[in-house]
């Protein structure tokens, strides 16, 4: 490996991306410009660098031109960096001696109408990329074993589904439930729409399957008190009534669910004449009192307000379902639903909504600025079409309250170092691209812990999370990009632990070595954010491929 500065030979590949780049920037000028940059020994323009032809050109140039650094100026590293990296690797060059310059997403597409300015900016970007490339150093990817055992937090329908899916694939599962029995919210429900399956029967079936499964260990009345380690090598303390057990774990699924908001002080809630939808489920399960003839349901109680701005989205379908069940049990009863907007997503829900209207459920829109008034035997509501208040007689008022985040969600988020949103629900890695993963590798989520979900969605998410969690379990090992924090100057480190306290991933720890207390980077857990390097007052820590002098070189190149 040439390490003297004069031996550095950089190849620059300029991608036209069809007309995506070449249509807006002066490619010939860029080529001329790149040739004059320090250490650049080879420049080539391709129509598509990512095409097979383009890739082969890179490989060929590495061999023939004896290149030891490669810079591709093209689209975006988000989609194409892995491809170019591996191509360099195939040609025998360490993949981390590759640098990518983004001249499409951040340049040609932005400056479509300013060719000259855009070209100047592209020159800046290429010059900076080349300056950094000259200082790149080879890295080796990091491998780590994965303990083939999953931890599932929460034994509701989400957790049970995920556990069963993982266990059926042959992995050991440890299922933690804080209550005495499994089942979670399912135990309190009556019938599940749209198939009107019996919730109790479903719960029994799942509980039986889980408790009888040879691969699943269930801890009830238990909670996790300490989580150490990282993907593949977690070490978890589980506290039960009989003491603390410590188990090695490979992946973690968070399925702690949610709970129904109790509307204390709202609409005269008393749990008897004014109940929540969850309590309604129980009333229906036990058989509704035949005296109940007039029922009024009020939607959005305690949600979509300042305190809880979100729509809990499953309360509408629950209300419609229960309205129809009330009409079924007491055929001469009258049910009115007072709503703000009906959230009836999906084909079946929409059908059920239409069906309910046909079956005589009444819908009255109300304005949150002028909410319904619950009095002893009537509910007064302003009817927007009549343009006046109307009184609805009632025997029972049902309040549709939102699902709110589980008790102790914050505690779990701190234990696992995963984020929760402003409503206390767990925050997925990406709302569309990684909906069942956390940003932290090796931890997954499903069900109402993430956002209010009905049983059907929860089951689907449970299966999905299990599927995501199976990937590292099936591989048995993980490979991590080596663009992580390193203790570059061991002598400088004083083992003060400042960085340890700030690391968002728990990827740093202080160890006692022969040289005294020194920080140690747990490479598998590190995500390379660089907070530690920017904080270390001894400048002992650095980030691979983003070292201080590489960034400085880019800065200087920018100012040239």
């Amino acid at each position: 490996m040439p390490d003297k500065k004069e031996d550095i030979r950089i190849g620059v590949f300029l991608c036209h991306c069809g007309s995506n780049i070449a249509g807006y920037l002066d490619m010939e000028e860029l080529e001329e410009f790149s040739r004059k940059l320090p250490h650049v020994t080879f420049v080539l323009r391709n129509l598509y660098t990512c095409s097979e032809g383009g890739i082969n050109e890179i490989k060929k140039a590495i061999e023939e031109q004896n290149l030891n650094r490669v810079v591709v100026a093209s689209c975006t590293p988000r989609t194409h960096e892995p491809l170019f990296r591996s191509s360099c690797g195939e040609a025998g060059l360490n993949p981390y001696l590759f640098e990518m310059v983004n001249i499409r997403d951040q340049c040609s597409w932005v400056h479509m109408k300013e060719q000259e300015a855009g070209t100047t900016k592209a020159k800046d970007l290429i010059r900076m990329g080349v300056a950094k490339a000259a200082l790149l150093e080879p890295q080796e990817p990091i491998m780590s074993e994965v303990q083939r055992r999953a931890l599932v937090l929460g034994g509701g329908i989400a957790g049970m589904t995920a556990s069963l899916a993982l266990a059926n694939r042959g992995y050991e599962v440890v299922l933690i439930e804080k209550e005495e029995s499994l089942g979670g919210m399912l135990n309190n429900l009556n019938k599940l729409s749209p198939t009107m399956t019996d919730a109790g029967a479903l719960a029994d079936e799942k509980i039986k399957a889980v408790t009888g499964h040879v691969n699943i260990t269930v801890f009830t009345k238990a909670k996790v008190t300490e989580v150490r380690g990282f993907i593949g090598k977690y070490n978890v303390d589980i506290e039960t009534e009989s003491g603390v057990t410590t188990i090695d774990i490979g992946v973690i699924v968070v399925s702690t669910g949610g709970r129904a908001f109790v509307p204390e002080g709202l609409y005269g809630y008393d749990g008897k004449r004014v109940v929540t939808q969850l309590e309604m489920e129980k009333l229906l399960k036990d058989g509704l009192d035949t005296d109940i003839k007039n029922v009024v349901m009020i939607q959005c109680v305690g949600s979509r307000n300042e305190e809880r701005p979100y729509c809990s989205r499953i309360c509408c379908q629950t209300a419609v379902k229960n309205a129809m069940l009330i009409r079924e049990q007491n055929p001469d009863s009258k049910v009115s639903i007072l709503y703000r907007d009906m959230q009836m997503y999906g084909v079946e829900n929409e059908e059920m909504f239409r069906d309910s209207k046909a079956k005589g459920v009444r819908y009255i829109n109300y304005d949150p600025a002028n909410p319904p008034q619950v009095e002893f035997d009537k509910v007064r509501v302003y009817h927007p079409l009549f343009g006046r208040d109307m009184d609805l007689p009632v025997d029972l008022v049902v309040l549709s309250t939102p699902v709110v985040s589980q008790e102790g969600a914050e505690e779990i988020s701190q234990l696992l170092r995963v984020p929760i949103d402003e409503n206390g629900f767990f925050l997925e890695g990406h709302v569309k691209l990684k909906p069942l993963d956390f940003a932290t590798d090796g931890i997954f989520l499903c069900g109402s812990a993430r956002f209010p979900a009905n049983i059907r969605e929860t089951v689907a998410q449970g299966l999905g999370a299990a599927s995501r969690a199976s990937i590292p379990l099936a591989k048995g090992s993980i490979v991590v990009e080596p663009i992580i924090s390193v203790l570059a100057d061991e002598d400088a480190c004083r083992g003060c632990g400042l960085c340890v306290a700030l690391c968002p991933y728990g990827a740093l720890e202080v160890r006692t070595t022969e040289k005294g207390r020194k920080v140690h980077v747990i490479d598998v857990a590190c995500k390379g954010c660089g907070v530690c390097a920017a904080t270390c007052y001894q400048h002992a820590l650095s980030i691979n491929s983003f070292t201080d002098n590489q960034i400085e070189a880019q800065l200087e190149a920018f100012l040239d």
Partner: protein
Amino acid sequence: MQDKKVLIVGGGIDGVNAALEKAEAGAQVTIMEKFPTLGAERIPRDRLIQPDDAFVNPDLNKVRNHDSIQVLTYSKIKKVSRDNGKVTAHILKQSLRVDNSKCNDCKACIKVCPVNMFDDFDESLSFRTAVDYFNPATGEYNIFKEDMPVCQQACPVNLDIRTYVGQIADGKHLDSLATIRDRLPLPGSIGRVCPHPCETACNRQYIDEPISICFLKRYVADVELNKEIEPVYETPEKKLPEKIAIIGAGPAGLTCAYHLARQGYENITIYETLPVPGGYLWVGIPEYRLPKKLLQREVDLIANMGIEIQYNKRIGKDVSFEDLKKNNDAVFIGAGCHLGLKLRVPGEDEYEGKGIVDCVTFLRDQALGNPIDTKGKLIVIGGGNAAIDSARVGWRMGFDEVYILYRRTKKEMPANPWEIDAAEHEGVIIQYLAAPVEILGKDGRVSGMKCIKMELGEPDASGRRRPVPIEGSEYVIDAETIVPALSQAANLEFLGEDHGLDINRWNTFDIDEETGATNIQGVFAGGDVVTGPDIAIRAVAAGKKAAEGIHEYLRSK
């Protein structure tokens, strides 16, 4: 010589040499030094005494390793007592905040330490950091941790002022209030009436003026009030069964009950003689300084913790003190000082109740709405806050003219200066350097008072110049009502005969300073009934201390 034990105080050069000498002579030596290292105060490295110097450097290692020498560094003498020819010394050995066995003298701590302080070893010529080394030869380090900020130290309950004022600056008003309530359950009331020793101590006064610590307390309490937030004083889930009786619902009693309830005690009963809570806060402090509604709210918050307050229950009349002691696991006496002292001038006893009303009774009647005759002029005698309160209250009640008579000058007046100014501003006539001589009467009622002018003589025991009457300067003020507001005393009649409690010559209780315990097991006392008339916040502190003492006592029973 075998039993001879020697204590050497001071680990400087002489101390070390003396220790070696005594030890060689066969004595058991203990050498004590207030700094963390032997060999005197920190000596700069370039001024270390070298072996060839005129001074002989004591052999520190020999002292450290000597079999019959015990080295106590970073220690303080707490108490020395002599008994039967034997001297016993109590020494507090403080622990170092640096583990010197692990320290490798890299000085990194000095470089990063953000706390700069004047170097007391250098007569404050230079700065040093809070972490510092002492003898550079031995490289012993320590962190100097100040105990508390001056304001917190000055506050009798040690309110975490630094934090709550900072929280207000951060805009976290309710957090700030929670910080206050951790120690003080009456922020709104105390925030209005406290004479704030904290502000007197505040370092900011040397730049411009002290931080308004007291009113900031009132401010956050008012923020809560204005936002119409009804707080709940939390009690723990685990309840404790012991029965506790508290005499007096004043600041001491209420605070004691509050802190006990926070420990989980659920059988707390407060016995209050008056029909209202708050003690002197209610019947002594006028409405304009502390609105009753506000005080009631704060008392209700405490009562809602499950504390029973029995009003109109006078101990010794409705319940005997003996029964109280028998039926409860612990008793706290916070009865306060509700007995006005007399003037001791001729005519006083004769017209008692016929125009002469002591200030405690006067203020109480006013606070409880009892009828008071407000015809004619009012004379208040005294210079404390109670005198000013009486005068300002009297002015508001409609007396034609209100006088305050004080023996010394305005400078010596113990009342808060802003109160004096307010009284004068309102129209109260304050006559300084004047004292009563005789109460005059007509038809069985007070008709006026003979006074005499005074001048200031030599300073007395309290350091204030003693007022001396000017002979022949007598004069008369016509008045229908005279309120002596000299001082108050505790009324301990309720204890009955043979109570067995230690009472001192000021007619207050002798208690254990740390726990509030009296000489009788299970009986605790605090507040004015122990200290004599004092400020409310000190009663709060006594209540808190007693609550801790009671908790400790009940848990170790």
